[in-house]
């Protein structure tokens, strides 16, 4: 069964002149329960707003449209506003980039956990505390009794992120959205947090959306990867085939930009970079959004490409996907 299915999601805002600016354009994505979906793209590509849209947290000035939007089998568009936010909060939760900003600085960890458990499960005070301790243990906090009494400013970044995950799990979600969960952490803590998320995915059958700009983070752990550029889904396929043979020039560039260490490093080789910047949503290029930056662009790229289904791979939005042009060889 599909845990999450979104068809043709469009998100747009208006600038001061009242013109419509597209942030996400006709994006369709689906994932099954218990899967890990990686969403990759550079800053400003619309990954975070996609996560907020799934959680229903987009501010009121931003317009969100979709043809179909379901979470755990329930069509969200049939629910009223208050029903929807209640339903989403019981099925999905989210952790944000900076660990410290996940938690209210004025509340103790116990209060955070207690509050959420109180909303979603009807338990006595004593049971709630027991459950809080269990949750903290399950995210790898060794001394939950002490941590429970602490305030966010007394914890390290890594510990804050663990607690944030525990608070997110207190809703008993089926989907956990992690928006760059490891960006602010140092490398050893990064791998610990990532291992924790993957372990939770295995043990609790928790669907996981990992949003990142770092392909290296996704490599082995994810089932599927979606590559987003400038609000459009560029490539969406099994992570094995994307990592083995990326079809879209943008995906190729992203993978090419991962530094290779040790034996894999060829001396004198440079990292692949694309010239230019991601286009601002006030000045989108004609045709393919990657067009002006794409090293293998041809004349046909002035027409906007569709998502092609490629056999044994997945969806790719490129005119030249079949030819399997490889930019890393071209440079």
């Amino acid at each position, binding site marked *: 069964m599909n845990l999450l299915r979104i068809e043709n999601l469009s998100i747009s805002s208006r600038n001061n002149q009242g013109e419509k600016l597209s942030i996400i354009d006709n994006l369709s994505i689906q994932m099954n329960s218990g899967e890990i979906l990686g969403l990759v793209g550079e800053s400003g590509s619309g990954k975070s707003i996609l996560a*907020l849209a799934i*959680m229903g*947290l987009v501010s009121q000035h931003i317009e969100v449209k979709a043809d179909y939007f379901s979470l755990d089998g329930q069509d969200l568009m049939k629910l009223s506003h208050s029903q929807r*936010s*209640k339903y*989403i*909060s*019981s099925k*999905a*939760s*989210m*952790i*944000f*980039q*900076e660990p410290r*900003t*996940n*938690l*209210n*600085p*004025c*509340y*103790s960890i116990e209060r955070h956990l207690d*509050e*959420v458990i109180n*909303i*979603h499960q009807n338990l006595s005070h004593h049971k709630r505390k027991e459950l809080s301790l269990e949750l903290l243990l399950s995210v790898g906090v060794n001394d939950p009794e002490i941590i429970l009494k*602490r*305030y966010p*400013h*007394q914890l390290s970044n890594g510990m804050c992120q663990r607690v*944030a995950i525990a*608070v*997110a799990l*207190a*809703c008993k979600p089926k989907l956990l959205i992690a928006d760059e969960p490891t960006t602010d952490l140092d490398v050893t803590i990064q791998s610990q947090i990532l291992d924790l998320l993957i372990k939770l995915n295995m043990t609790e059958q928790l669907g996981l959306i990992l949003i990142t700009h770092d392909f290296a983070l996704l490599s082995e752990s994810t089932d599927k990867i979606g590559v987003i550029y400038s609000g459009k889904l560029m490539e969406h396929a099994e992570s094995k085939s994307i990592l083995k043979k990326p079809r879209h020039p943008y995906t190729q560039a992203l993978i090419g930009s991962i530094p290779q260490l040790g034996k894999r490093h060829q001396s004198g080789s440079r990292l692949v970079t694309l010239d230019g910047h991601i286009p601002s949503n006030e000045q989108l290029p004609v045709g393919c959004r990657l067009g002006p930056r794409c090293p293998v662009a041809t004349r046909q790229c002035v027409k906007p490409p569709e998502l092609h289904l490629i056999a044994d791979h997945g969806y790719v939005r490129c005119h030249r996907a079949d030819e399997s042009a490889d930019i890393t060889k071209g440079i």
Partner: protein
Amino acid sequence: MIKIILNQFANLLLSLFGLSLLSFLLSLLFPTDTIYSYQQTNLFEKYWFYLNQIISLEWGTSLIHGRNVFNDFILNLPATIELIFFAFAFAAIIGIPLGVWSAQHKFSYKDKTVLFGSLMGYSLPIYWWASILVLFFSVSLGLTPVAGRIGFEYEIQPVTGFILIDSLISDTPYKIDAFYNALKHLFLPAVVLGTVPMAIFVRITRSAMIDVLSSDFIRAAKSRGLAHHKVLWHHALRNVMLPVLTAMSIQISVLLTGILITEIIFSWPGIGKWLLEAVHRRDYATIHGGILAMSSLVIITNMVIQVVSHYFNPELRFKR
């Protein structure tokens, strides 16, 4: 918590010591001796005697009517505290929710109206605002009395000095009427005195609220399914209270000075009126005692707010 209070108390003693030094130096400038006398020859002896007198609450006698200055101060204090309390309550109860409401509708016409109103309130001269309110409420509508603490037809025995409490605990048959009458008398001065702090609370609450509402932990709280009012009035307001408390501690000192004008306008028998009359009569002993008392009040209330803000801010309570 006890450690914090003790710590603040030590701070308080230090500030009061500094204050006594300053007020002693000031009293040297007075043309007459207020507390010390010619018996002490050098400055240190004079100060030592002065300090002893201050601590044993012998603040000298008024040069005009010969009463003990400290007793006079205690007699006038309850009226002022009553007025400040209600002015402050008015400012906080109207100002903080208005700021929250304004932040929720930020940049809309509602927000702009509130901001414009608070700018007006902030820049109003108190005496002008007082006379406008008196003209409207007392002269045109006849709803409130013009001056004083209670109507002359009621006779209330002072027990605590707070007229609202005294009228309720008195055993006169008209005690409820007297209470309402005192409340009516309190209304205009409290509104006049509370207008400027209210405008400031609105602005500070609004800007802090806009800041807090856009932070991630508010989004995270919403994503966990917390009801909107809980997110706003618990999670957000708790964080907003920190800057508001700082503003409050500044506003208390402003109120204590603002009270001079308000008490004169409404002939409110409090410290402000007492002190200003002493100034007119060159009653140096009273001036000295009044200044000492007012400054001590400012220091003490600031310390109390410090302790309260320790309660609100866990980062102060628990060091890393």
